[in-house]
């Protein structure tokens, strides 16, 4: 009797949990299925399964241009993020210098309101980049990296802290130069934190919308915004674009899942 009751209770809670999960994920499931429909409207029951939407999106010149632009900007952002942030985080972890804790605290505090400050500084940014003739696609990755500095320096510093410093000290005592120390000892032993930084930099630039939209660069998010804002939206085409756009992000999410919580806690995930 007891086990039958328990069984019923389990079935009941499972049903409750499942219906809540289904309700919350309903919009995403809907969009996902619409991508395989011939009808331009949103649909849950795909009567006419097709991959045509994906084919026409991939053949679309606008999409290709945006994909290329987004890839180049994101690639440059990853490269610059590694170049600028890795050495700084290493110094914050290993060195002691004047102003170190002030800088770290400032980074931490700033990263809490970086989104709001980012929007609040748009007017001035627009004016002074315009005056300096710096509104250019080549400057965009630098803008992205500058916004990533506070949180990612903090994150990466914590990872470097967890790598035993005896390793680099031993190499130093052995008489290796800075070059050897950097490329033979430090970098090989910090693959994980550097990978995390690369993933975060990619996710950040791939999904950045506000700056790209303001300066009129047609990256993928800006292109999709043009789609949904159009007078007539072809939802099946939007859905196919959205899936293609989301694939790299979802793959990286799976790799970096356990670090995302930290990113959201710090308020930086875009």
């Amino acid at each position: 009797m007891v086990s039958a009751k328990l069984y019923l209770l389990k079935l009941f809670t499972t049903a409750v949990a499942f219906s809540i999960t289904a309700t919350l994920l309903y919009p995403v499931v809907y969009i996902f299925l619409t991508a395989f429909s011939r009808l331009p409207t949103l649909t849950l029951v795909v009567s006419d399964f097709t991959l045509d939407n994906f084919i026409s999106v991939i053949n679309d010149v606008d999409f290709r241009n945006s994909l290329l632009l987004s890839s180049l900007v994101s690639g440059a952002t990853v490269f610059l993020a590694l170049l600028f942030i890795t050495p700084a985080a290493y110094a914050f972890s290993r060195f002691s210098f004047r102003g170190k804790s002030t800088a770290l605290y400032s980074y931490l505090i700033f990263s809490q309101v970086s989104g709001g400050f980012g929007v609040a500084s748009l007017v001035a940014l627009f004016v002074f980049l315009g005056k300096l003739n710096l509104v250019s696609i080549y400057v965009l990755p630098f803008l992205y990296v500058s916004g990533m500095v506070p949180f990612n320096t903090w994150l990466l510093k914590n990872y470097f802290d967890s790598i035993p410093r005896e390793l680099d000290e031993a190499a130093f005592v052995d008489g290796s130069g800075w070059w050897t120390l950097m490329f033979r000892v430090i970098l090989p032993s910090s693959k994980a934190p550097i990978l995390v930084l690369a993933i975060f930099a990619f996710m950040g630039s791939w999904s950045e919308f506000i700056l790209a939209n303001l300066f009129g660069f047609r990256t993928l998010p800006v292109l999709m915004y043009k789609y949904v804002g159009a007078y007539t939206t072809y939802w099946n085409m939007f859905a196919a674009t959205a899936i293609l756009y989301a694939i790299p992000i979802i793959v990286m999410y799976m790799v970096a899942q356990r670090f995302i919580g930290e990113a959201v806690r710090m308020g930086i995930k875009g």
Partner: protein
Amino acid sequence: MKKQSGKEELLFPTKIALILVVPSLLLFIFFNIWPIAFSVYLAFTNANQINVYRPDYPVRPLMFVGLSNFVQLFNDPAFYYSLLKTMLFLGTSVPLKILVGVGLAFLFSSPLIYGRKIMRGLLLTPWALPAILSIMIWRGALDPRYGPMTQFFSLIVGRPFQAVGTVMNEWDSFLAYNVIEMWLAYPFIMTVVGGAISGIPKEIIEASIVDGAGVLSRTTKVVLPLIIRTIAFVAVLTSGASLQAFLIPFILNDGGPMINFMGKLIFSNDLLLLYGYHRFMRDYEWGYAAAFYLIVVLILSVYVYVWFKFVFQRGAK
């Protein structure tokens, strides 16, 4: 922070540390701090999209206007309406997020669910998607004609739900903002609170069962007091997100329908950051927008002070 021993200071001189730190610091200051300082200058001028680049332009040449932007701001009913809406959004979206997030954390801490881990993993989907994409998906979901969630919300409000499109309702839009903000935030709250629940020692739960506590009193009198600090912690953090909401109103319906407020036509759902953006991109009142954003920076500084005092410093102890 780790203690530094004297030996390392000798090994790694300050000069090298500075070479490593300064490039990123300069980049950060140049693109993030300098614009805010530059806003202070703009806030006291009559800058617009022409005179900023051509100061001698015959119509409205660029000049200092003293405090007049601030005077204009504090006499603008739209500013107060935006402030009020943002505070209201803070007051409604934070409890909603916490309620759903904590509720899910409790539900999915129960061992009585088949496929619990799979469902919990699927529920983290909003984390895996970029916020910009999620909000666009919601725009589709709330499409007045085809939107799958439109019918659901129409049932709740008892008439056609109008948050997106050519005909919009002020409070339908506001409700939609709340739901989307909740949807973006619940995975975080659920994960953090769920972690706190699973961290409660089994002995405490077992002792309460032996004492004859039912499920309800066990939850409210034993578990809840033990995780209330965690809930307060996530409440402060997610308040920051609500206060800085920009993409949700911007992407969903660009600040909702226009309404007539005290004789002025305004966007009814211009949350703080979006209000400034509209002054910047629609009215081209750049000096005014800069003055407004300085007020926003002040408000955010108050928030970050609260965060530092009550979350960071207490959490670190």
